[in-house]
């Protein structure tokens, strides 16, 4: 899915739930036929969207199953776990734990996610108007509501419904409104005129200057009018006076137009006539008390006036908590503690407002009966509502009350409780999909729905994968795993969390950061998270191919994406297989470390060469070991070339001149002193199409059977490079000149010593060639290969020898040698040469009767490890004997090998069996994880849970090798391996 497609417009157009997949791991268990699931789902969605409008009753039923649903109703404040919610036509039909899901319902599974009602911000979004009037009732907040604005920021914080305030900066600042921040545009406005905004404690409004229309000698410019209130004393007076004037106007007692038309008075009269509720914002204790008495008086006595009232802000509410509680007035408490910055200094002023976290809790002594809503400080624009609730909880508010205070109660206070704020039957299906419980610190909003339509989807966590890859496949999701026990590799972390990002483990600890949009998997307090299991030697995916593989065969290429047998192995918990060929050639075979699950080859192959496998089985061990030794020696020389090259390269990069590139040749000079090629040759070219014969000189040098050289171009006089080879007496040389018809090739035969004869051919042309060696001395010329491209002096890399590359990896400490051997003689000989003499790390594939070798292996310490299996338990001397236990007891590092293809899926069971027959659960776990990784030098990526390691994890319900433990999830490279449908 392209990122560009994730625009709000697109969201609105597509709507629907099925596309939640990228963030929420949704699996749509559709009743529709299984073929083409994406198309089906999209079609179903479109259908759903359309029928929502036309016939709500016939709209399809949607069932959402989640880890928990918080209905936030008065009757059900706590969560329903696991939760099921039925939706139809944008409305909630039912919420419960074990609701029967009708057969025709489309089911969406959110096994890790939490559903709550969309948050309702009673504090709201402020758009303080610029009007100077102290009582400015004509200003309507709804005029500033932009239904086309980008509200993603608020939606990403979970606020779906908000109050719109005309500002808290005037005694009467205007008429507020209640709107949804998403959903169909014509259904956004829940209340265009919601209530009358009164703000106590706001003094000294600007003087009101009303310039006359064309001042003249008759029309004087009056000075600006000083407005009330200038002090606390005047504010209620002003308020009463204006309200009473409005009341008279509303009752028709005053002739409009008698005085100059006053829009604000007219608006106030309108508000009185409509019995708009009063919203009184007050911070100071005295203002709060005044607000309480004024509101009660007005609501109780004026039968034609405001129908109700509620209080907002209440920064000093704690001081008058009893008065407020006993008044029964609903309250919207602003948690005004600064949390984005330290805020202002209070100083020694005894009257300084120092907000306290406990205010909300004190104003709701009985949580269940409380009519308490929470809001952030003014100007927050409804973004940190959830965090504000967390702060109130820290101040002593019960979590259920806190949830109600940002959902149901504010909706009721604003008079829209029948539409939003709770998930009760008949309410709008406005809800959030949260990554975790609502008041966990790391929780983020993964998706938001209004009227059953998705209106927000968390953007994927940023990825730094190369563009080419990112374009091909989705990066693995960012995930936080919480569990009671995390097996780090050598020790267990209790009550831990692991953060997975981009297929790697990003953090491990008790509380790791949860990036926005991260999926949270809460495995539970008993759960064990362990590294993915490693099969120390297997043939997964070779499909019985017994062809002997040689050292240059890249076995990792046999890996196929979306391979069924492979997925079965992954589902069993084996996430890595050391893939070896069944049989190997004399120069050994490559062993690759591959993953059992991934979306492309890059993800599947952990290491191309993790080991080189040699087999002594059925061969003469003396000759074989000697041959391995020779291979290692030539690999060492090869490796030296590379080391030298890398040194030169480093020097070149640092700005030094490289040493003469002919270095290796000078070393070899003695050996090739009498070879049949090296030296200076005089070449005579003759025949058509040359008018006369041409003589040129060439310098040639033989290395192995490769020839390099330089020849003087007969036409230009420049030196041109020659490359080629000698096989037997036949010489083949390519002349490295550019020409549109190809490169000329010399084919000649050494007819006798120092003389060759042949032809130069280019395309169909051919001329005769005769050459005589005039000097056998070593020749000097600059390195010729790709000379043209390296005029900057960059040293040339040596030629890659695929057959020696694996051994080079061994010498470089990036791989090990796997030896398959039977019998004490072979094992002894192999270890003596490879470990003692050549100091190479060796993995021994468990030979038969391996107990006899313990004494051979043990003295060599960590230099030798054993891949035990495939048969763990054999009768020996009439007694069942577990080889793994014996090795482990002797301190020898062991891994478990399947030596099979997809039968590797039984490896965990083998380990369990080994555990119960003496290895112990921890021993079995180590053998399958950290020890196997270490013996193959893969512990930089695998075998442990630590930052930087691959995100290959298994989640068990208990210790992996406890009797009752169950493998719950398998994650490979950050991706959860899907389970097979039953």
């Amino acid at each position: 899915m392209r990122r560009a497609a994730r625009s709000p417009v697109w969201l609105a157009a597509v709507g629907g739930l099925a596309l939640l997949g990228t963030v929420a791991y949704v699996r749509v268990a559709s009743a529709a036929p299984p073929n083409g699931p994406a198309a089906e789902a999209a079609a179903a969605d479109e259908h759903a969207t359309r029928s929502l409008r036309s016939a709500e009753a016939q709209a399809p039923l949607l069932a959402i199953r989640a880890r928990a649903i918080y209905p936030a109703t008065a009757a059900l404040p706590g969560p329903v776990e696991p939760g099921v919610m039925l939706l139809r036509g944008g409305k909630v039909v039912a919420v419960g734990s074990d609701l029967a899901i009708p057969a025709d319902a489309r089911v969406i599974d959110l096994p890790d996610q939490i559903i709550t009602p969309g948050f309702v911000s009673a504090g709201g979004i402020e758009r303080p108007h610029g009007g100077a009037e102290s009582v400015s009732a004509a200003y309507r907040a709804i005029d500033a509501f932009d239904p086309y604005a980008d509200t993603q920021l608020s939606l990403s914080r979970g606020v779906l419904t908000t109050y719109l305030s005309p500002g808290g900066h005037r005694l009467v600042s205007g008429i507020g409104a209640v709107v949804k921040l998403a959903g169909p545009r014509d259904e956004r406005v829940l209340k265009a005129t919601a209530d009358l905004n009164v703000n106590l404690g706001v003094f000294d409004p600007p003087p009101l200057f009303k310039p006359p229309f064309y001042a003249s000698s008759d029309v004087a410019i009056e000075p600006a009018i000083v407005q009330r209130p200038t002090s606390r004393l005047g504010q209620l007076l002003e308020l009463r006076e204006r309200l009473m004037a409005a009341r008279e106007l509303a009752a028709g007692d005053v002739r409009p137009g008698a005085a100059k038309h006053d829009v604000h008075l007219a608006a106030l009269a309108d508000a009185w006539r409509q019995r708009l509720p009063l919203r009184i914002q007050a911070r100071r204790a005295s203002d709060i008390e005044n607000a309480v008495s004024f509101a009660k008086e007005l609501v109780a006595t004026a039968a034609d006036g405001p129908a109700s009232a509620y209080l907002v802000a209440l920064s000093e509410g704690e001081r008058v908590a009893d008065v407020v509680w006993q008044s029964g007035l609903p309250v919207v408490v602003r948690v005004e503690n600064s949390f984005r910055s330290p805020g202002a200094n209070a100083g020694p002023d005894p009257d300084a407002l120092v907000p306290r976290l406990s205010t909300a809790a004190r104003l709701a002594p009985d949580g269940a009966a409380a009519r308490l809503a929470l809001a952030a400080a003014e100007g927050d624009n409804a973004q940190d509502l959830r965090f504000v609730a967390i702060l109130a909880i820290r101040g002593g508010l019960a979590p259920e009350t806190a949830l109600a205070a940002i959902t149901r109660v504010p909706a009721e206070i604003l008079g829209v409780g029948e539409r939003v704020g709770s998930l009760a039957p008949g309410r709008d299906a406005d809800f959030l999909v949260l990554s975790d419980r609502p008041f966990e610190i790391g929780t983020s909003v993964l998706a938001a729905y209004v009227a059953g339509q998705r209106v927000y989807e968390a953007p994927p966590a940023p990825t730094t994968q190369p563009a080419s890859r990112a374009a091909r496949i989705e990066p693995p999701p960012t995930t936080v795993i919480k569990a009671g026990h995390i097996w780090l590799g050598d020790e267990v972390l209790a009550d831990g969390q692991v953060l997975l990002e981009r297929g790697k483990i990003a953090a491990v600890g008790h509380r790791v950061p949860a990036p926005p949009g991260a999926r949270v998997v809460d495995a539970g307090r008993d759960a064990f998270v362990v590294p993915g299991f490693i099969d120390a030697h297997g043939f997964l995916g070779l499909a019985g191919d017994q062809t002997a593989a040689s050292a240059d065969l890249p076995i990792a290429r046999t890996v196929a994406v979306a391979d069924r047998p492979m997925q079965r192995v992954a589902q069993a918990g084996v996430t890595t297989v050391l893939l070896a060929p069944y049989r190997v050639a004399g120069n050994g075979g490559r062993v690759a470390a591959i993953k059992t699950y991934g979306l492309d080859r890059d993800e599947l192959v952990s290491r191309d060469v993790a080991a080189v496998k040699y087999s002594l089985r059925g061969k003469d061990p003396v000759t074989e070991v000697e041959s391995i030794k020779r291979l290692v020696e030539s690999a060492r020389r090869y490796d030296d070339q590379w080391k030298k090259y890398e040194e030169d390269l480093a020097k070149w990069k640092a700005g030094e001149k490289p040493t003469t590139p002919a270095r290796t040749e000078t070393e070899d000079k003695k050996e090739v002193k009498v070879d049949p090629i090296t030296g200076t040759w005089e070449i005579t070219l003759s025949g058509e199409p040359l008018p006369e014969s041409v003589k040129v000189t060439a310098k040639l040098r033989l290395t192995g059977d490769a020839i390099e050289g330089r020849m003087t171009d007969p036409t230009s006089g420049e030196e041109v490079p020659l490359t080629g080879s000698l096989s037997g007496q036949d010489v083949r040389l390519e002349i490295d000149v550019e020409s549109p018809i190809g490169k000329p090739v010399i084919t000649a035969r050494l007819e006798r010593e120092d003389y060759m004869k042949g032809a130069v051919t280019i395309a169909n042309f051919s001329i005769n060639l005769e050459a005589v060696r005039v000097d056998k001395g070593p020749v000097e010329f600059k390195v010729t290969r790709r000379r043209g491209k390296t005029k900057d002096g960059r040293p040339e890399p040596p030629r890659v020898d695929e057959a020696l590359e694996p051994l080079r990896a061994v010498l470089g400490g990036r791989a090990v040698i796997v030896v398959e051997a039977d019998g004490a003689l072979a094992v002894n000989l192999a270890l003596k040469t490879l470990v003692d003499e050549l100091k190479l790390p060796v993995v021994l594939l468990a030979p038969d009767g391996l107990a006899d070798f313990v004494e051979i292996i043990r003295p060599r310490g960590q230099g030798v490890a054993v891949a035990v299996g495939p048969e763990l338990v054999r009768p020996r001397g009439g007694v069942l004997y577990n080889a793994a236990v014996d090795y482990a007891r002797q301190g020898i590092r062991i891994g478990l090998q399947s030596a099979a293809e997809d039968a590797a899926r039984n490896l965990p069971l083998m380990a369990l069996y080994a555990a119960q027959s003496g290895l112990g659960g921890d021993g079995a776990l180590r053998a399958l994880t950290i020890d196997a990784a270490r013996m193959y030098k893969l512990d930089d990526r695998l075998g442990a849970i630590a930052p930087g390691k691959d995100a290959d994890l298994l989640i068990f319900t208990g210790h992996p090798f406890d009797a009752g433990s169950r493998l719950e999830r398998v994650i490979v490279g950050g991706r959860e391996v899907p389970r097979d449908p039953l």
Partner: protein
Amino acid sequence: MRTNGPVRRALNLAASGLALALGSAAAWGAPPPDKVALTGARIIPVVGAPLARGTVLVERGKIVAVGDKVEIPYDAREVDCSGRVLFPGMVHAHTARGLDIPNEPRPVVPHLDVGDALDPSQLFFEDCLRLGVTTVHVIPGNNTVLGGVGRVVRPIGLTVADMTVLPQSFMKISVSEKFDRIQQMAMLREALAELDDYLAQLAEKRYEEQLKKDDKPLDVGPAEARKRGRDLIRAEDVEERYRNLLRLRGGQVRFNGQDGPTLFKPLGAFVYVDSGLDVGNATRVAKEYGFFDRVVFCVGGPAFKAMDELKSAARPIVLPPELVYRETNPLTGEVRETFLPRQYFDAGLKFALTTGTEDQYAERMLTYQAARCVREGISRDVALRAITLTPAEMLGLADRVGSIEVGKDANLVVFSGDPLEFDSVVELVFIDGILAYDRAKDVRLQRLLSEELSDVREKRPAPPDKTDKPEAKPDTGEPDADHGEENSE
């Protein structure tokens, strides 16, 4: 040379006078030739198919014949336009240039008329000629609530009266920009609602006057007096301040839901709507006060988001000079660009293109704006109309300007090539048959392009890289040696 203020001003005046003189000598000097024949040009008439080679015959400022076989009267002055392109004079739908300031500081000034502030000597009008614009709708800027009425002018003439094509064209209303929207809307409603109160009081006053005239005592209460006085209101009774408002609301006296006499012709409104929400706000107000069917929307960048509302409103659109709207996703930081004309074109709405301020040279040219539209896939016909006939229709002048048709004003532009080609220049401009501009005699342009000035330009020490390589090279880590060598040559 240093000169003091008055002298410099005098020089400037002289210069602009000179510039005007070169363009419109005919306008005030010798009477215009009765008959002019523009021959041999490729004609793009905007209405109908282009003519590969044709003649336009102008008689007494009107086009009397267009075609490839027009007989040229013996007494016609013939202008050979071979190899040139003849295009109708372009129409600028909406600009506050030509005024000294775009808006009065006070927000509610419906009684203002730009005619009082038009400055015929503004260079802007000279530029209009230079760029082929022959009809300009000058109207107060967007930074207002009720900003006053505009005026359609031609960019020649020494007095405002000379220039005027259509006085009191449209009221300028803005529901955004000047203040926050809450205040903006409240002020607009207040001003419009105030008219009701005023008319009611005026009716009462008129009834009382009538009684006084007849020497009768006041016999009824105020409510009845207003009812009876409604029909007594005469046009001259309406104060200047309320006259335009009354015209905006249809010109008919109406209050308390009852109709009185029609005193004035209705006035339309150019309503500036910046964002999506403004479209809804403007529509509601305009419908409430009865001038919605005379509204032209001057849209801002983000207004296209309310395309559904704009579509159902089906009112003409004046586009902003900046044709690309950019917005940033607050969560991901992605920037999305929208080419605005395309949105309106796809919605099937009629739109006019406008030009920007002085700082973006290219966007000062209507032809450039139209060329950008064609480049973005809008049909050439619609793009050409958006700078000629469509704005003419909006202004109610489609019978006079905006195309080359028989009977229309002879507002003609002779381009050196296709008008949408970037290297085409305006060579001649005729307004009402008068030769208003001749590039060959454009003193200011000649000075701009003259050797003398180009010498000055060359002598100015300019960074050597800027001329050939407009963008500074990003740091490639390469040594700077190459550059040094180049510079030393």
